C-alpha cells in the first residue's frame, strides 16, 4: 500500500488538500497521513485544526512551530522548528511520497526533508509565478520536488525552462477550483445567516496579508484599504491575515477599525470562504484567491499592492497601489454593472474540469518509485 504524507499549514491550502485526502482514503491501494502545522494550531487564527477534526481526516502529526513575535527572524526560526520536526515525523511515518503545495516556506521545509531522506516529493501548483519571497520559495520547492503538478500550460512551460524533465511535469489543472467548479460551497442563504448579511446589498470581502519584503509597511498598507472600506460603508466581511512577519500589528489595526457594518473573522472554513466569494460583489486585498479562484466565479478582485505582482491574471483583476482613493475608486468600478458584465465565463489562466484532484491521486498511485524518480538531474 502506497503511503502519502500530506503537509497542511493553513486554511487556504487545506481546502484543496481535503478532496485529495478523501480520494486517497477511498482507494484500497493508498493511505495517507496528514501533518498539521503552523496556523492550523493557533487560536489567533481560529484553530482551524478543528475543521480538519470535524472532517474526520487522519491527522497523524501536530507540529507546533510558530514562534511569537511575527518578525522576519521569527519566521525563519519557526521554519527551522518545522524542518527539525519533519525529520522525526518522516522517520516514524515512513511515507512513500511527500505531497506539498504552493509557495510557502512550510512546503519548502517538507520538500527539503523529503528530498534528503530519499522520499519522493510531489508539488501541487508548481511553476506558477508569484511575487516576493513566495515566488522564490515556489521555485526552490521545484528543485527538491520529483513530481510537478502544473495548474496551466504557462506554469508547465516555466517548469520545462527551469530544466525539469518532461515526464515529471504533469499538467493537471488547479485543484483549488475543483470544489468551486462542482459547486461545493456554502449557499447564499447560509452565508447571509452566518454573517448577518443582506445579500440584496453590495458585499465586500477583504483579505489582506503583510508582505515579507515590505516588513514594517503592512500597517500603513492595511490602513489605506480600511480607510477606503470605511469611506464606502458597504457591508464588509474581513478575514484576518496569515502569520507572516508583521501580522500581529495588522490584526490590532483591523480590530481598531471595526465598525458596525464590518464583520471580522479569524478564519472561515474553505466551503464558507467559497460561499463568501460567490456571494460577494468584490474581493479586496492581496490574496491569491482574487487571481485564481475569483475568475471562476466572475468575481471582481481589487488587487492591492505588490504581493501578487508576477502572477498570471484574468480580466476580473483591477490592480491598484496602496492608496485609499485609488482603492475606493477601484471598488466603485468593480461594483458597476458594466464591469461585472464584462467578465466572461472561464476566461482565466487557471483551469479546472472538477477532476484535477483525481488526476493528482492517479499519478501518485501509478508512477514507479524507483531510481529514475529519485535521482534528479537538471536537464537544462
Amino acid at each position: 500500500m502506497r503511503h502519502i504524507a500530506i503537509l497542511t499549514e493553513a486554511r487556504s491550502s487545506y481546502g484543496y488538500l481535503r478532496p485529495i485526502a478523501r480520494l486517497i482514503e477511498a482507494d484500497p491501494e493508498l493511505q495517507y497521513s496528514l501533518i498539521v502545522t503552523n496556523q492550523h494550531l493557533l487560536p489567533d487564527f481560529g484553530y482551524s485544526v478543528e475543521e480538519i477534526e470535524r472532517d474526520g481526516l487522519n491527522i497523524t502529526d501536530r507540529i507546533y512551530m510558530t514562534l511569537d513575535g511575527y518578525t522576519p527572524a521569527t519566521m525563519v526560526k519557526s521554519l527551522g522548528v518545522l524542518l527539525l520536526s519533519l525529520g522525526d515525523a518522516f522517520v516514524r511515518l515512513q511515507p512513500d511520497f511527500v505531497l506539498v503545495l504552493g509557495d510557502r516556506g512550510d512546503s519548502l521545509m517538507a520538500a527539503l526533508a523529503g528530498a534528503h531522506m530519499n522520499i519522493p516529493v510531489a508539488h501541487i501548483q508548481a511553476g506558477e509565478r508569484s511575487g516576493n519571497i513566495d515566488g522564490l520559495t515556489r521555485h526552490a520547492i521545484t528543485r527538491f520536488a520529483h513530481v510537478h503538478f502544473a495548474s496551466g500550460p504557462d506554469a508547465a512551460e516555466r517548469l520545462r525552462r527551469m530544466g525539469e524533465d518532461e515526464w515529471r511535469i504533469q499538467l493537471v489543472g488547479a485543484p483549488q477550483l475543483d470544489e468551486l467548479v462542482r459547486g461545493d460551497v456554502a449557499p447564499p442563504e447560509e452565508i447571509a445567516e452566518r454573517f448577518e448579511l443582506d445579500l440584496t446589498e453590495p458585499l465586500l470581502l477583504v483579505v489582506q496579508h503583510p508582505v515579507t519584503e515590505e516588513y514594517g509597511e503592512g500597517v500603513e498598507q492595511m490602513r489605506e484599504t480600511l480607510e477606503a472600506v470605511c469611506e464606502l460603508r458597504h457591508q464588509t466581511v474581513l478575514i484576518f491575515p496569515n502569520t507572516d512577519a508583521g501580522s500581529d500589528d495588522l490584526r490590532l489595526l483591523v480590530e481598531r477599525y471595526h465598525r458596525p457594518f464590518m464583520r471580522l473573522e479569524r478564519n472561515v472554513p474553505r466551503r464558507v470562504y467559497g460561499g463568501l466569494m460567490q456571494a460577494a460583489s468584490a474581493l479586496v486585498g492581496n490574496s491569491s484567491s482574487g487571481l485564481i479562484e475569483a475568475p471562476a466565479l466572475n468575481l471582481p478582485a481589487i488587487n492591492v499592492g505588490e504581493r501578487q505582482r508576477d502572477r498570471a491574471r484574468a480580466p476580473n483583476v483591477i490592480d491598484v497601489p496602496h492608496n485609499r482613493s485609488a482603492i475606493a475608486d477601484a471598488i466603485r468600478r468593480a461594483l458597476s454593472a458594466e464591469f461585472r458584465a464584462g467578465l466572461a465565463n472561464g476566461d482565466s489562466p487557471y483551469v479546472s474540469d472538477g477532476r484535477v484532484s483525481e488526476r493528482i491521486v492517479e499519478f501518485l498511485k501509478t508512477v514507479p518509485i524507483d531510481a529514475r524518480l529519485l535521482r534528479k538531474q537538471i536537464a537544462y
Partner: protein
Amino acid sequence: MERDLSLFTVGPTDSLRLAMEKIDRNKHRVVVVVDEGRVLGTVSDGDVRRAYLHEQLPITPVSQIMQLNPHVTTETDPERRRAALLRERVTVLPVVDEDNVLLDVELAYEPFAD
C-alpha cells in the same frame, strides 16, 4: 447613576485570568474588550472555558480568544436599549457611539447580592 465600567472592561493584552476575575466579580458572565475607548470584542466565561480546553493558559491575552463581532447598540433611548438587549439575548450589551466608543453597558439582570 453612573455605572462603574471598570469591572466590565479589559484591554486586549490583559490576561484570561484578569478577564475571569472581572467576570467573577461583575456577575454578568461577560467583559468587554476595550482599546483606547473603542470596543474590540467581548469575552464570556464560556469563551474562557473553551480556551482552557484548547490548552490556553491563564496568561494568554484576551485578544486571542475574544468574540470579534459582538452585538452592540447605538441606541440612546433606555427603552430601545432594553429592547435591543432582549432581541440579542445577551447578558451584557455594550452601548457605543458611531465610532464604536464604549459609553455604557446594558445589563440583562440586576447583580445578585454577595
